[in-house]
């Protein structure tokens, strides 16, 4: 700061006498620098906001397609000779017919449909046409027959999923050029789809199966849904909430209200602030080594994920809880102590209830962080597990292998079929909706209940 005064006074430039109202060159330069500096700031903020907008637009434009799916409507005759040879409607007999047995029924139904509508196609029979349908159709039919055995012999209308190539064709992802070397589908199929589309047999509609369904095998992207992993995430969040809220609050109360100033307390403080900055993948290593290798908890189970995420969120919750405990003015404590409450009573009866809105806000934000966290889940085996079944029951929800929403998104992003990319973007929309809801609740809690002293 001394440079300004250290200059030689002799070299001071001679100033011409000018009006204050006209700016000289130097002032103009300084003002220009001022404007430039301000513009840099505006540019920086605009870039940041632009990135945000770009990301949101990408997510929405790519992901919204996952919520619609192409369906093919047709009437299938549930042939008694195929499905129930003995004709006694014995479930054990019906169950013996595998999905392969159902394929001819679908082929026939498809062929009939095309003939009824009078569509000309190069494909000779139903078996050749079936590439337009999802491989899941036979299983869907079989499930229906097993739950309604009395419908055997009738003709029932079904809505089957179209294959992912057909779906991609209607969404513009698959073109005639791109399928030139595709063995699964030919341009004859696409012509057929165009005709069926005109007749209203093939249509795109909202796909509830994506939100509630389970993950499917690599070759059936049209069937995959995020429902099972949503349940996995839900059980993980239950574990995180049940452990991190009481432990975090207890730890904060001790550190804020009771802890004497000594080495042990300092050590805890240092640990908490360091844990908050430890990379999440390291928590994954901890979970793998301690919970799976050492304690032999089941791999891929939500309880392990929940435990790891609890350890990760604890510092966040402790830091925000301490802030809200600190915000309660000392007069409250003094008043409680003054009328004869013990220290413990003053904290639990007076300080804690007043700090509760802040604590809950911090907890919800911590939970939202935990919900979106992926890296530690990779290491405890939640990626790579194909969540193709719902967990059974409450205990099963904690202990059965399952996936979690971010892990499921990662799993889809790794698969080769571009149809899964669409699913991954769609999964992100679902995840972001959850995160936004949680953050909104936190903001509302803060606005509604937080007290300014």
């Amino acid at each position, binding site marked *: 700061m001394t440079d300004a005064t250290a200059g030689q006074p002799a070299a001071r430039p001679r100033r011409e006498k000018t009006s204050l109202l006209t700016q000289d060159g130097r002032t103009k330069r300084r003002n220009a620098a001022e404007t430039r500096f301000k513009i840099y700031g*505006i540019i920086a903020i605009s870039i*940041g906001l632009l990135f945000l907008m770009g990301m949101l637009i990408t997510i929405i434009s790519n992901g919204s397609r996952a919520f619609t799916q192409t369906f093919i409507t047709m009437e299938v005759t549930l042939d008694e000779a195929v499905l129930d040879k003995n004709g006694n409607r014995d479930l054990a007999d019906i169950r013996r017919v595998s999905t392969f047995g159902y394929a001819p029924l679908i082929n026939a139904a498809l062929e009939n449909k095309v003939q009824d509508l009078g569509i000309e196609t190069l494909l000779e029979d139903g078996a050749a046409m079936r590439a337009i349908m999802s491989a899941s159709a036979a299983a869907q039919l079989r499930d229906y027959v097993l739950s309604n055995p009395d419908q055997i012999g009738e003709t029932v209308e079904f809505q089957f999923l179209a294959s992912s190539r057909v779906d991609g064709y209607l969404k513009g992802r698959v073109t005639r050029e791109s399928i030139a070397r595709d063995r699964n589908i030919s341009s004859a199929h696409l012509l057929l789809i165009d005709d069926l589309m005109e007749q209203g047999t093939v249509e795109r509609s909202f796909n509830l199966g994506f939100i509630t369904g389970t993950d499917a095998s690599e070759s059936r992207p049209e069937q995959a849904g995020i429902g099972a992993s949503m349940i996995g995430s839900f059980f993980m969040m239950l574990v995180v909430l049940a452990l991190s809220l009481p*432990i975090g609050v207890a730890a904060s*109360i001790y550190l804020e209200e009771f802890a004497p100033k000594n080495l042990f307390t300092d*050590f*805890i403080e240092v640990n908490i602030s360091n844990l908050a900055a430890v*990379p999440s993948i*390291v928590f994954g*290593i901890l979970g793998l080594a301690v919970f799976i290798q050492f304690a032999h908890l089941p791999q891929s189970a939500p309880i392990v994920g929940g435990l790891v995420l609890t350890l990760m969120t604890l510092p966040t919750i402790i830091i925000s809880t301490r802030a809200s405990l600190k915000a309660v003015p000392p007069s409250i404590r003094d008043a409680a102590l003054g009328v004869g409450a013990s220290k413990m009573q003053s904290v639990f009866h007076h300080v804690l209830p007043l700090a509760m809105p802040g604590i809950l806000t911090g907890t919800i934000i911590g939970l939202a962080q935990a919900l979106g966290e*992926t890296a530690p889940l990779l290491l405890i085996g939640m990626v790579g597990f194909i969540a193709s079944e719902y967990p059974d029951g409450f205990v099963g929800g904690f202990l059965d292998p399952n996936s979690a929403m971010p892990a499921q998104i990662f799993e889809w992003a790794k698969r080769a079929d571009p149809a899964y990319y669409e699913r991954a973007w769609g999964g992100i929309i679902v995840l972001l909706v959850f995160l936004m809801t949680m953050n909104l609740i936190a903001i509302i809690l803060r606005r509604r209940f937080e007290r300014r002293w």
Partner: protein
Amino acid sequence: MPVFWIFVIITGLAAAGYVLGRGRALASAGGDQRNLHSLPSYYGSNAAIFTFVPAFLILLIWLVLQPIFISLTVQANIPDSVVPEGSTIGLVMSDVRRLADGLDTAVSQGVITDDYARSVRVDLTDIRARLGEAGVALGSNLTSEIMIAAQRFRSMTNTGNLIKTIVVLLIALGGLGYALSRTQKDFRARNTVEATVRVLLIVAASIAILTTIGIVLSLIFNTIEFFFLYPIGDFFGSLTWSPSFGGGSDLGVWPLLWGTLYISVIALLVAVPIGLFSAIYLSEYASPAVRSVAKPMLEVLAGIPTIVYGLFALLTVGPMLVDAFGDDGYLGLGWMQGGTAVMTAGLVMGIMLIPFVSSLSDDIINAVPQAMRDGSLGLGATHSETVRQVILPAALPGIVGAVLLAASRAIGETMIVVLGAGAAARISANPFDAMTTITAKIVSQLTGDADFASPEVLVAFALGMTLFVITLGLNVFALYIVRKYREQYE
């Protein structure tokens, strides 16, 4: 009895203890609360605590120690001849454990009876087929020694569980009886309860320490094991990274470290100018209305999960960069071979770090005393001159701290590099090449199917240790700087 039910029973006993303790205290005071030392609920809580806490602690300790004890006992009884060449006793033990679990599953599904599971001999029956019916797949080498060990394992586990149930329930009942026997009107229940609660609070606070210890121990033990199998000099000395699960891997850390640092530097080059200028504008120039909109919007970027950034890098930014810098790109440079590259990951990570840098710098700039601003403006400096020559120098240590914290974030970031940076470990100066990082390799080494005792898997722990030490060092240093700076103006 399953642990869950033991837990439910001791919780029930504790609830009963609360009611009984409270009632007994009131009865001893002749029904008049004023004759009691403490409020009635404290007598109840006292009984509940004495019922629940010791029993629960014993249950936890038992759950941890029993498997260790049984494993050691069973392991000691397995003859060395059973361990195949090139394998370890640990792998045999995991076979034993799997077989014991399989027998349990089969019994619970009713495929075989409990007596059958206890007495079955491998050489007499085809147990593999029977277990297959229950959906249990067994490992390749099923010898009679393993079967005997598994049966011993099962019987010890069953006995242990029975004893555990009895002991835990007895302790719960004993605690209940003891607490009730002490409950009378002069008993200082509040003091006892508060002392216990205080201990529980301390235990909760110590979990942070336990977590750190857990992290350090799980890293250290496996790292040491790794360095027994693979020389430490090669790990820190070799410039190639080529793991091959058949053996003869080259596991040098430098290519990974190079990739990590390169990506972090690019990320910081994006995040620091944008974040810093945003912070300056928001704290010095913006009107309250702009600030109240722009600041939360920027912070939304911090709330987006990293998997979203990863996908954005892989599917949007990568292809966009290839369109520009790729072989057939419209710039015609041909620098980039594929969508995953250092640049892709670095750019996206930079976006992720913007709010981190800007909100930390914002706090620090706001902490510079108003008097310094006023003094500078009063001398005739323009606003930007004040910022550049007064505020920034004053805030510099704090900003350096913020940048270091951001760097530690960048180094530890996983999902963006796993999806956006590629898998090839190489040392190259071209930012459009695919490179890989420490975190990405931790993931790929630990999620493979390889045997857990091989150096190719254990190296992940050594990498984790490296990462932990680097980020910890950066954090401690950054916090030190930030704290030191804060004191300067307070």
